[in-house]
């Protein structure tokens, strides 16, 4: 169902370590990337190249905040990015590190 994206408060997730689910593949596209979850057959769109960078950096970053800094995302945009990451988390595309992904 269409929902209006809201800029969630940036707290909480920023300090956490996340990663792309191991069943998810990213396909580069002119606008950013497609994310496909082989387990749930769900498709998501990463709508900017910067978001793709952030998502790719998650696995090697100690926290979401580090990934955002390393990707060069200005702090004023962090709430929007955290909102996008929360959306990806809801769809099972990314998950907190330490939890095993579903096959």
């Amino acid at each position, binding site marked *: *169902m*269409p*929902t209006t*994206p*809201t*800029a969630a408060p940036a707290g909480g997730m920023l300090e956490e370590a996340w990663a792309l689910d191991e069943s998810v*593949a990213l*396909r*580069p*596209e*002119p*606008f*950013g990337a*497609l994310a*496909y979850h*082989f*387990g*749930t*057959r*769900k*498709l*998501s*769109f*990463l*709508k*900017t190249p*910067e*978001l793709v960078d952030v998502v790719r950096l998650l696995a090697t970053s100690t926290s979401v905040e580090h990934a955002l800094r390393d990707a060069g*995302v200005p702090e004023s*945009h962090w709430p*929007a*990015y955290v*909102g*996008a990451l*929360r*959306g*990806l988390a*809801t*769809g099972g595309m990314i998950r907190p590190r330490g939890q095993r992904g579903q*096959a």
Partner: protein
Amino acid sequence: MTILEERTAPPPSPGKLVDQFEKGLDAPICLTWELTYACNLACVHCLSSSGRRDPRELSTDECKALIDEFERMQIFYVNIGGGEPTVRPDFWELLDYAVDHHVGVKFSTNGFRITAERATQLAATDYVDVQVSLDGATAEVNDAVRGEGTYDAALRAMANLRDAGMRDFKMSVVCTRHNIGQLDDFKAIADRYGAQLRLTRLRPSGRGADVWEDLHPLPEQQRELYDWLMAHGDRVLTGDSFFHLAAYGEPLPGLNLCGAGRVVCLVDPVGDVYACPFAIHDRFLAGNVRDLGGFDTVWKHAPLFQELRSPQSGGACTRCSAYDACRGGCMAAKFFTGLPLDGPDPECVKGNATGALAEGRTRPDSSRDHSHTGTVRNAPVPVTLLRHRPSAMCDQSPLA
């Protein structure tokens, strides 16, 4: 496949995603691959005019090479159809090969060959989904279109899948004049088998061109369908096929965009690449996977696809208040009913195609036909005996 676009909040504005889709993607999102024109049935509305195997059909090795190419292009998922794909002797081998190469498969079937044993095998395979065709919630409605015994075969297949533990497989319904009143019944059948209901639009493609006038939903039925989808749309799949109904008001879930040659294409059994599954005609032929450069080159560089990805003129439709919602509707539906591609959809809910449909039209000849030529077991017997009103009494009575 479920598209989660709206759940991912966009970071600082990259523009509308739908605008990106109109310019095309590096690889299709929704690729239909028809493995064979051979079919054990002879449905009256078959999109691909299937029946007889084409002797030029891709070999097993060619199919595997194509799957390799899909893997390289990161086409995560293909919809396999036909014909009836399971009649290919190498079907199960190709299914395993695709899954092993990270190409998920959803295949469409009439269910005749989905035995208890095959259902168990399917339930045990990740990345495989099954779609069983059923075009009537009763045997009477279904078999008139798909052939005698096809209702029972579809339900038997679904029972086998359910009993094998397969969950959320698809039950796919082509919406016609005779089954719009059965939408709740379809939902109940799908629920009974643990299946997901999928509704799609009757297209005047293939043999569908011959029956479209008699089978496409009437205007009041289109409204009924729209209202039903608005009420149940979150639990029913549509393959984005009813975007012409968006002109009623609220858009239906999905992209509401013609994806032909932009995010969608069809590879047919002989390797021909068409702009969409409903457009098997020379006019929409982009190339062949056997050409130099293979499928990748056809997808990225075929002149037809370049044309479809360039800004399209809405023609007469741009003056309509609903144009932003329906974008003129379905290209294939217009083409096969002989309407201009830059005018309204033949089922335009504003009635803007009524005049053009009433005038003399030249429908395109079918440029590909693999229909059975002899007697077919289970051949459907359409319920309509007299298709067209006689123009004069003497057409009916020699005494008049």
